[in-house]
């Protein structure tokens, strides 16, 4: 295959035509309301970050710096993980109709034309050389292909680079300036950029695979052959001596991924849906990883293959396939490089042209007498014209820079020099989003300081190295002062030039920004913008907006302003949409209130930037100056309302908690009430049973005097025992009532607990024998002595023992009493082999009126007062009474009574 100039030109033209078709398709779909911008397309369009500097230059960098080229891609990976920051930027930009990074910064600091202009100038100075770099890469790649076939790169006396520049400019104009309103997104352009990203990835990976697996035996083989050569082995090491450079490059590229004008355009302005960021957060880094896998293998392969032939490493991507006759692959690589360069130039020039038009040209035009003379004219055509000229001028500037610099140093390092320039926006941007106190004066001071340091330590020295200016200030220092040496400021040496510049410029930038901000007062507009930016997620727009503007405006004046800058058709369309949102059929009936003024200003901001929009609205509406104090009051009020609502919320929660406590207390009361009812029915039942039998027997004796003596004696015996039971029950109820009310009488004396236990067992012995229950004990001969009431302790033991005998089975029952000392108290246990208790029962049997066993089916075996009374008694003496039991394993009732404190 012969790589003639015609073939290359035809192929390029065909590729650009495809690109154009993709863009038209994207635009057509957007116009039809069926956007093709999905999360994946958004993520891929971010890869406009990978320019021809990546495509060709990474390999070149890897041949000298080894793996350090990766920092340029690791920084963005880390930065994108801070999704919250990106989403906040997008949210602010949508709310404020922001169209460029200059507009963002200017809008935050009181819609300042000065700041907008400064940011634009810095961006243009920083980025134009970067565009030149793209042209150079294109020119170099065309040269490589033509040299290979021996053709010449001239056409009608014009060099190919100039042709490329013209085509790129035309392309950008066609893509970027179809609509005026820059907030109306360029979906066609985004689609084309995403398409290009896929093309360059495929092209680069194809070359990488061809070299790694075609020319060499795979990654392992390639690396092993490199290690054997001393020069190449060094490239595979990560030297800790480069730690500083490594970190600053990661930081720098992390900032560049957001602040390069084209990146801001794609990430923020062209974003269709915030949720797309979540996809980009991993898909874009994955893209970067894939496109970088073969960079080092390509670099090593090129160095191994060409040895000392002096082939430019920047062209390995083309020369390696060409050297092996893979011309089709070389053409694919060329198309990939073309993709990388065109994508970058298109997006960058569109972003820059918006900034130049809105923030440099418009402010001048708005002041000019000519514009005032054309008072009634439609200016939307003029605006588009300015943007088109700006695009052409920027590309032309890039071409001029490329011609002037040629092969000079200035182009090689320009990518990083551009990064360092846009990194100067970081303090003003981040500060503006998170720090309300930051002021316009602070931002102006910080940006100027950072920019000047960047100029002095990085851009001018690069000019000096190209021989354009004297290098005296680099080598000897300005005015011969050694501490002013441009790349060893104040004697700081040992850093590479990028780190050196980054360190000093950030110090100056941040220092000036913070110091001046802290010592200046914002004006009213700044204060309200600060609130809108920092609190974008909380700001109640509709309430505050209407109060933050007061004055007189006429509907006609504002409408004619909109028509002038947006064009009549578009202005009316927007007005109709706004009126519809307000529920009005005719926009002519809209009131010219604060909200309408705000709407008009936002629409204008979309077309000419926030700073110019503010000036224009102010020119037709009599705005009353609210003054800083009043604005702060309004904002404070909004904040206070938020604080009140938070307080209200807290109060509501407290109330809820109190309510639920009350509910619980009520539950407990009900439970007690229910237990009392149960008790009364139990007690009534218990009282009625003996009463009934006493009454029945008494009646029999009364009515039939002829009853035999034996029966009479038996009846009387029953009557006596039933009467005793009644008495006992009543005594216990009275006892409980006394204990509860604290009116019980206590005596206190030395009590031998062992003795008490023995006495009780003796007195109840008959009961056990009657039922055939074995009663055993383990009691010391001279029992422990405590200070207590003898009769009361006896009462407790009787209660425990009679309970035990009640529940154990007759005949096989066993009850064991143990008295011992446990720590500082006497421990008495009454263990049985009865049915045992569940864990729940272990707790409730000590409650009043609770009975052991099933009260529903079994006859009650006690009064339900014995255990509660016993517990009250034991607790009175400072001890504890509890039960240890499991169902089926018997129960062990234990109480302790503290021993008297030792006298010694």
């Amino acid at each position, binding site marked *: 295959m012969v790589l003639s100039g015609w073939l290359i030109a035809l192929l390029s033209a065909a590729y650009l035509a495809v690109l154009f078709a993709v863009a038209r398709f994207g635009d057509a779909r957007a116009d039809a309301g069926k956007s093709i911008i999905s999360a994946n397309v958004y993520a891929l369009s971010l890869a406009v970050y990978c320019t021809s500097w990546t495509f060709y230059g990474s390999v070149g960098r890897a041949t000298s710096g080894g*793996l350090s080229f*990766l920092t340029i891609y690791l920084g963005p990976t880390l*930065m994108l*993980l*801070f999704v919250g920051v990106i989403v906040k930027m997008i949210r602010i930009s949508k709310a404020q109709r922001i169209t460029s990074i200059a507009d963002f910064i200017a809008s935050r600091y009181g819609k300042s034309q000065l700041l907008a202009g400064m940011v634009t100038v810095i961006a243009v100075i920083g980025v134009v050389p970067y565009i030149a770099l793209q042209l150079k890469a294109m020119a170099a790649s065309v040269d490589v292909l033509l040299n290979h076939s021996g053709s010449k790169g001239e056409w009608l006396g014009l060099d190919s680079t100039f042709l490329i520049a013209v085509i790129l400019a035309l392309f950008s104009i066609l893509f970027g300036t179809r609509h005026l309103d820059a907030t109306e997104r360029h979906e066609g352009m985004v689609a084309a950029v995403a398409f290009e990203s896929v093309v360059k990835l495929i092209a680069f990976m194809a070359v990488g695979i061809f070299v790694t697996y075609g020319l060499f035996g795979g990654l*392992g083989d390639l690396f092993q052959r490199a290690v054997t050569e001393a020069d190449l082995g060094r490239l595979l090491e*990560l*030297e800790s001596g480069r730690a500083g450079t490594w970190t600053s490059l990661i930081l720098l590229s992390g900032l560049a991924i957001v602040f390069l004008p084209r990146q801001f355009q794609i990430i923020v302005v062209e974003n269709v849906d915030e949720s797309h960021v979540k996809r980009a*957060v991993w898909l874009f880094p994955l893209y970067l990883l894939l496109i970088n896998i073969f960079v080092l293998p390509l670099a090593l392969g090129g160095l191994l293959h060409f040895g000392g032939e002096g082939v430019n490493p920047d062209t390995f991507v083309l020369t390696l396939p060409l050297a092996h006759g893979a011309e089709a692959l070389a053409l694919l690589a060329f198309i990939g490089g073309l993709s990388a360069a065109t994508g970058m130039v298109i997006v960058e020039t569109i972003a820059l042209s918006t900034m130049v038009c809105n923030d440099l040209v418009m402010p001048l035009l708005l002041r000019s007498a000519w514009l005032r003379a054309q008072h009634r004219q439609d200016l939307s055509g003029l605006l588009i014209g300015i943007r088109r000229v700006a695009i052409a001028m920027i590309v032309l500037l890039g071409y001029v820079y490329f011609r002037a610099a040629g092969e000079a140093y200035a182009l090689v390092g320009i990518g990083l020099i551009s990064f360092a320039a846009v990194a100067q926006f970081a303090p003003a941007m981040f500060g503006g989003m998170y720090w309300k106190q930051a002021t316009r004066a602070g931002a102006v001071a910080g940006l100027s300081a950072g920019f000047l340091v960047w100029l002095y330590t990085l851009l001018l020295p690069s000019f000096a190295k190209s021989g354009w200016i004297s290098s005296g200030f680099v080598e000897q220092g300005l005015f011969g002062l050694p501490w002013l040496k441009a790349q060893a400021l104040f004697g700081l040496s040992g850093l590479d030039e990028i780190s050196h510049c980054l360190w000093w410029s950030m110090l100056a930038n941040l220092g000036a920004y913070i110091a001046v901000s802290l010592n200046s007062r914002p004006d009213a507009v700044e204060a309200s913008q600060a609130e809108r930016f920092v609190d974008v997620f909380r700001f109640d727009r509709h309430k505050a907006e209407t109060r933050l503007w007061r004055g007189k405006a006429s509907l006609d004046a504002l409408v004619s302003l909109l028509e002038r800058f947006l064009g009549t058709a578009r202005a009316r369309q927007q007005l109709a949409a706004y009126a519809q949102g307000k529920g009005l059929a005719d926009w002519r009936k809209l009131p010219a209130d604060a909200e309408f003024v705000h709407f008009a200003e936002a629409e204008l901001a979309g077309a000419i930037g926030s700073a110019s929009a503010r000036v224009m609205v102010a020119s037709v509406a009599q705005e009353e100056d609210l003054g800083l104090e009043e604005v702060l009051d309004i904002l404070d009020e909004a904040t206070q309302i938020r604080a009140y609502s*938070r307080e209200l919320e807290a109060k509501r929660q407290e109330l809820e908690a109190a309510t639920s406590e009350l509910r619980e207390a009520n539950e407990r009361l009900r439970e007690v009430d229910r237990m009392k009812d149960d008790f009364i029915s139990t007690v009534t039942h218990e009282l009625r049973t003996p009463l009934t039998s006493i009454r029945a027997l008494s009646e029999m004796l009364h009515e039939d005097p002829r009853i035999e003596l034996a029966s009479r004696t038996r009846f009387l015996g029953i009557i006596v025992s039933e009467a005793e039971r009644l008495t006992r029950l009543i005594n216990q109820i009275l006892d409980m009532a006394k204990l509860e009310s604290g009116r019980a009488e206590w005596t206190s004396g030395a009590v031998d607990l062992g003795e008490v236990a023995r006495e009780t067992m003796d007195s109840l012995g008959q009961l056990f024998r009657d039922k055939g229950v074995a009663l055993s004990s383990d009691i010391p001969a001279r029992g422990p002595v405590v200070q207590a009431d003898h009769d009361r302790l006896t009462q407790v033991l009787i209660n425990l023992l009679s309970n035990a005998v009640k529940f154990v089975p007759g005949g096989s029952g066993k009850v064991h009493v143990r008295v011992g000392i446990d720590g500082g108290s006497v421990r008495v246990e009454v263990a049985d082999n009865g049915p045992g208790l569940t864990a729940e029962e272990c707790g409730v049997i000590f409650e009043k009126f609770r009975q052991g066993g099933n009260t529903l089916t079994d006859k009650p075996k006690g009064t339900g007062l014995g255990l509660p009374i016993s517990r009250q008694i034991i607790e009175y003496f400072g001890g504890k009474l509890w039960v240890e039991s499991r169902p089926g394993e018997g129960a062990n009732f234990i109480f302790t009574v503290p021993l008297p404190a030792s006298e010694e």
Partner: protein
Amino acid sequence: MKRASPTRQRLAALGLLGAPLLTYPLLSLPAGSLWGIPASYLYLFGVWAGLIFLAAWVAERRGT
């Protein structure tokens, strides 16, 4: 009051984790080679791929 989304916080935490893993002094650790491929190359791409995988997992999970 609006709380920061848990997904964003998890991703930011990944970013904070990635920073020390991808800078010195940890970078000076990998030495030698594995299957003929230098450890430094494997380490950088491995950590990078790991971060991307975790980010994808966090970002694409449903119901958070």
